[in-house]
């Protein structure tokens, strides 16, 4: 049971939900690999985690770039001798009404959220096959169900759901489970940037009347990453306080 002594790479883990997930995994005994596209953020997070006594290493990589991803996975394996858990968390959104969206908006959103998940999964899975054990956990979004103004993001996250189910069917025989988490509105630095009256209005419309916190995502990741989660495969776990049921 648990994730002690497993090696976990969490992409986009120098801030927000990814960082909290990495912290909780490290607290529970995993060796964690911190990743971000920003070197200063990676360095700061690794230093913080080392100070806390965690087993940690860091690697800067743009996960939409094949060579960078191969370097990232290579570093993780070289540093910790293997790779058991991959959390495809790095993501971003370029929102806007359909008429205003540009190729750049589409490409960036799809490349980071969808292609990045593909590249990391492809590069990592061979190590898991060799070990007959693996956990691929994709961070999709409740938004894959659709949201006005979110064409590129909803499309990319829907792709992540399709990829999750496909990898679950393809890799399951090798002891690798693939699942995704679909977060709803979570209290992150991005949420705090919204004007207060918008935050109050949005939270009031939620079934629970409040947004989630990064620990809700971290707990869901650890649930799926656990050694005892080997029969959970191909699932979309919505951590959204019921918003997936009704988002009107």
């Amino acid at each position, binding site marked *: 049971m648990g994730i002690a002594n497993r090696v976990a790479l969490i992409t986009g883990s120098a801030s927000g939900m990814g960082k909290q997930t990495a912290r909780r995994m490290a607290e529970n005994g995993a060796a964690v690999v911190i990743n971000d596209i920003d070197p200063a953020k990676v360095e700061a997070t690794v230093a913080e985690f080392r100070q806390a006594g965690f087993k940690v290493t860091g690697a800067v990589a743009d996960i939409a770039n094949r060579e960078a991803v191969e370097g990232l996975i290579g570093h993780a394996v070289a540093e910790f001798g293997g790779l058991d858990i991959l959390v495809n968390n790095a993501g971003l959104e370029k929102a806007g009404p359909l008429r205003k969206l540009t190729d750049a908006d589409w490409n960036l959103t799809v490349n980071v959220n969808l292609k990045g998940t593909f590249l990391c999964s492809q590069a990592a899975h061979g190590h898991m096959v060799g070990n007959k054990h693996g956990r691929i956990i994709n961070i999709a979004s409740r938004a894959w169900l659709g949201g006005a103004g979110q064409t590129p993001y909803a499309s990319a996250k829907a792709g992540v759901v399709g990829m999750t189910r496909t990898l679950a069917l393809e890799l399951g025989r090798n002891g690798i489970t693939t699942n995704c988490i679909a977060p709803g509105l979570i209290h992150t630095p991005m949420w705090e940037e919204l004007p207060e009256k918008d935050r109050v209005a949005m939270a009031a419309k939620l079934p629970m*009347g409040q947004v989630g916190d990064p620990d809700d995502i971290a707990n869901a990741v650890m649930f799926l990453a656990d050694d005892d989660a080997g029969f959970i*495969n191909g699932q979309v776990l919505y951590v959204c306080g019921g918003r997936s049921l009704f988002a009107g």
Partner: protein
Amino acid sequence: MQYDLKDKVALVVGAASDAGWVISRRLGALGAKLALVSEDGEGLAALAAELGQTGPRVLAITASPRHAGTAATSLEHVIGHFGQAPDILVNALPFPSGIGLEGLTAEGFAATVAGTFGAAFGFLREVLPAMRRQGRGRVINLSSVGYLGLPGGADIAAAQSGIFGLTRSLALEYAKDRITVNTLVLGDRAMPDQSEEDVARRTAAIPVKRLGVDDDIAHAVGFFASDASKYVTGQTFFVCGGKSAYFSMSV
């Protein structure tokens, strides 16, 4: 991950069923006090013995969940014994085997619905308002892959689709009360009376190429019964080795 349920009161309906047994054992191991309901008095006694006798931490209630009134009297017993309503409700009623349509009678169909979906509703109707008054709660409704719709199991698919709807509706109705309501769908599991042929056939259809074992269910119940899942509600979540990904109903 060790989920903390220290001193929570868990009511398990259908506790002497295969899944009910596994779940009761794990909830107890995570620190919960247990109220166990089953019409199988002998099975219940054996389970209570395994859990360390009835007493302050284990209350055994022999009654049929199918009977109207069982839910209300069970709740009374729980409050009388533990001084509070349940923190956790698990509807773990056993699932009947499927019958092809031409072997199904109206009575047989009604019995399947009453015994699973109807009995679950009875306990939800009594326990959820009590959880609301208490200001907290975790409800887990068990289902099986028959929910997805399999040939020869129209009655089960219908009854379990009812549970799917109940879960979603009640999750929204009780979301502001710090109560979560979820359905856990159990896939094919290793059972003692299976032939080698049966095991091979079922295993071949599961992406992880093995049948489910007790720890698989227990791990999922621990998550959904604890504070770790406080922002997860109204969900239908499969513990099936990936078999559900072959079906459109699973997303």
